[in-house]
């Protein structure tokens, strides 16, 4: 389960709206305890994929991910996952998302942005055998973890 406050979820979805018609992306910072993760904040990052394909691709470079890891350490948090937007496509991982996925255990939050407005976010976990993603429940909670 992934717990996130309404305020942080709003910030995450606003990033996707601002990036529209391209994909926006960033890191989820928070705490992980077994299979329960709490998002404390997001760290929006530049989409580094080539500009002409950003409408359906995103990339966070190792240098940006390093910055994110150090930022998490500085705040006493961990990188617990990633988020990105799907402009005018459902908040479901694509085959490309699966091929490029990293490790099972990170939460992948996807926001559908329809005509510039965020219309819903869902979270996904890569299966251990990397064959597919399975949905992770999102709990929006007013209490920070």
């Amino acid at each position, binding site marked *: 389960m992934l717990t996130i406050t309404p305020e942080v979820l709003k910030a995450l979805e606003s990033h996707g709206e601002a990036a529209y018609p391209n*994909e926006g*992306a960033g890191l989820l910072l928070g705490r*992980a305890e077994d299979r329960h993760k709490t998002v404390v904040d997001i760290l929006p990052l530049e989409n580094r*994929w080539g500009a002409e394909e950003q409408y*359906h*691709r*995103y*990339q*966070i*470079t*190792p*240098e940006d*991910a*390093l910055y994110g*890891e150090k930022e998490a350490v500085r705040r006493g948090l*961990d*990188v*617990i996952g*990633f988020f*990105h937007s799907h402009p005018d496509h459902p908040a479901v*991982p*694509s085959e*490309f*998302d699966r091929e*490029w*996925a*990293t*490790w*099972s*255990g*990170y939460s*992948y939050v996807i926001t559908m942005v329809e005509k510039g407005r965020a219309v819903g976010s869902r979270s996904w976990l890569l299966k251990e055998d990397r064959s597919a993603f399975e949905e992770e429940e999102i709990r929006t909670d007013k209490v920070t973890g």
Partner: protein
Amino acid sequence: MPTIRIPTPLRPYTGGNAEVPVAGPTVGAVLTDLTSRHPNLKQHLYTDGGELRAFVNVFLNDEDIRHLRGAETPVRDQDRLMIIPSIAGG
């Protein structure tokens, strides 16, 4: 002793530790030491063919080892290494 920082989802394989001490004169030796101390990490870092997975990056004191001497890069006692993923999708 050098230390290496472990990404959050791999910490179950290092006893829950975010940073672990490692030994070895080079980055390659240090990574071998890491996976021999924590064998269950290996499949998450390496392909079946023994290559580092494409999305796995190793930084030595904030420098990508690919910009240094790769696995041959020397490691000193006070060095800090980090395992960092490349992230992409569609």
